[in-house]
């Protein structure tokens, strides 16, 4: 202890120190209150529009149609074949779309990370622009391209490749193509951002140690890009599970996904308990997947939003 602080302690004494500490604590408390006041309006809105209604729906889901407390709304998911079919087609679409996004998105992100800065930023516009174009506009575009008398079919018939139009829209393939297009940027952007942070010295070291280009990619670059890939995959998969617009417009009534089922149950049949139960399970699955991802990689899945 230096002489100066000993002197200060003597002057202030135990009582004086206490007073100072008290004043500091009071100041910190006031500061916290001010910050809370700044946050209050936003927090209030989020609670009022998101948290409270969802809690309310959860409460509703615990009662059957007669108003008795029961798990009937949840038991139905295991008993009725139509629900099981909905879950199966939802997960099927989610897996296929996520797979397609990886197959298309990984090479694209890799190419973007290899391009010189200027070329990369021009190519990025092609990724970001669709990202900010209305989902409706893009779904409409795919309807125009894929429908029976659409562009693909008329081109193929003109070229003599096919004689009968292929059914591309209003079925499973239409939903998959449309959703892949809409969700691809959600995979490419975080993946590209993470590839850009890979230290090129690691790659050079790999080459110096005698690895060829392919081996360097496989053993150095690819493992380093996995966290970015994982975050993109999780985001795309989770968004697939709750996707509404494209399946509703391009499924032709043949592909009923989770979100459509929720809309039908509540709007068409006004069965709030059943619709709410679907929503609760969807939310739990979503949060569980995100939580699992965060636990495995210690990263925040919302990172994609700040990267755009």
């Amino acid at each position, binding site marked *: 202890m230096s002489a100066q602080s000993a002197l200060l302690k003597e002057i202030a004494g135990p009582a004086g120190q206490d007073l100072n500490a008290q004043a500091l604590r009071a100041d*910190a408390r006031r500061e916290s209150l001010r910050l809370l006041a700044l946050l209050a309006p936003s927090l209030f809105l*989020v609670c009022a529009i998101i948290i409270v209604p969802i809690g309310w729906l959860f409460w509703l889901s615990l009662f059957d149609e007669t108003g008795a407390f029961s798990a009937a709304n949840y038991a139905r998911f295991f008993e009725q074949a139509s629900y099981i079919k909905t879950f199966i087609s939802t997960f099927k679409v989610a897996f296929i779309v996520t797979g397609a996004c990886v197959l298309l998105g990984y090479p694209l992100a890799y*190419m973007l990370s290899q391009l010189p800065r200027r070329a990369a930023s021009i190519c990025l516009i092609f990724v970001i622009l669709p990202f900010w174009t209305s989902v409706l506009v893009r779904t409409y575009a795919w309807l125009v391209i894929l429908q029976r008398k659409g562009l693909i079919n008329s081109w193929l018939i003109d070229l003599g490749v096919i004689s009968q139009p292929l059914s591309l829209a209003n079925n499973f393939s239409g939903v998959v193509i449309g959703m892949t297009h809409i969700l691809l940027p959600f995979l490419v952007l975080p993946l590209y951002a993470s590839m850009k942070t890979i230290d090129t010295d690691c790659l050079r070291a790999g080459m110096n140690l005698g690895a060829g280009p392919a081996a360097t990619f496989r053993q150095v670059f690819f493992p380093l890009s996995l966290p970015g890939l994982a975050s993109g995959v999780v985001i795309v998969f989770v968004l697939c599970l709750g996707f509404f617009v494209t399946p509703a417009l391009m499924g032709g009534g043949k592909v009923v996904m989770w979100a459509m089922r929720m809309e039908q149950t509540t*709007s068409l049949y006004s069965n709030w308990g059943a619709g709410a139960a679907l929503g609760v399970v969807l939310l739990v699955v979503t949060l569980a997947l995100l939580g699992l991802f965060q636990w495995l990689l210690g990263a925040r899945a919302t990172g994609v*939003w*700040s990267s755009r």
Partner: protein
Amino acid sequence: MSDGIGLPISHRQRLWLYGFGGLVLLFLIAPSVIIVIMSFSDSTLLQFPPQQWSLRWYQSYFQSLEWRDATIVSVKVAIMTALVATPLGTTAAYAINRGTLRFNGTINALLTASLIIPVILVGIGTFFLYARIGLNNTLTGLVIAHTVQALPLVVLTVLSGLRSYDMNQERVARSLGAGRIAAFWQVTMPQIRFSIVSGALFAFITSFDEVVVSLFISGGETTTLTRRMFNALRDQIDPTIAAISTCLIVLSVLLLSLAQIFGRRH
């Protein structure tokens, strides 16, 4: 990687990679380009490339009262959403950036919750709540719901601006006698204003393009443009929608370039 040494790829593979990447880029951008070109077609058939050019679908868009009303509703709601979400998100980001609150992580998670929670659930929940308090089919209800959807984007954009700003500057201003609000307004604000403007633009376009929640809570005189488009697409494929889509694409390009310009200056 500019010196070209150490790229983990051979030249032939690079050609393949660029070819494939180019095709994926084409896949991403082609639908928008096709719609823009087809909106100038003279035919009711969906031909590409169009045989005859005309502006008839734009005429049919601008002359239809229904489409015009829906557009006006959407513009009004989007402007009001930007006006509400921007100050709310900015003050919230300011408070989060301090990082001194005990539940900072929880608060952050709450404010960005609408990015993660399935939007269909938010739509149904909001409809359910609004049915009780009479906010369905009102502009106020739409603005509130869209504000919640836009808040996370404003918060994240302003936060990224604040992260590259040294808060000590504000402390200096205050130690020199400026009040808290004056210090923020005269020292901090000018330095993060481009992030704030970007946040406002993101809020505007989030509201303008929002579909799912609007499907549930808008209707009658407050039918938004996206809701009307959704219903029209369920029935048939009307080329008028190509003209409307083109307008929406142009709007996105405009707002995005503005946000980019502001982002760069920041």
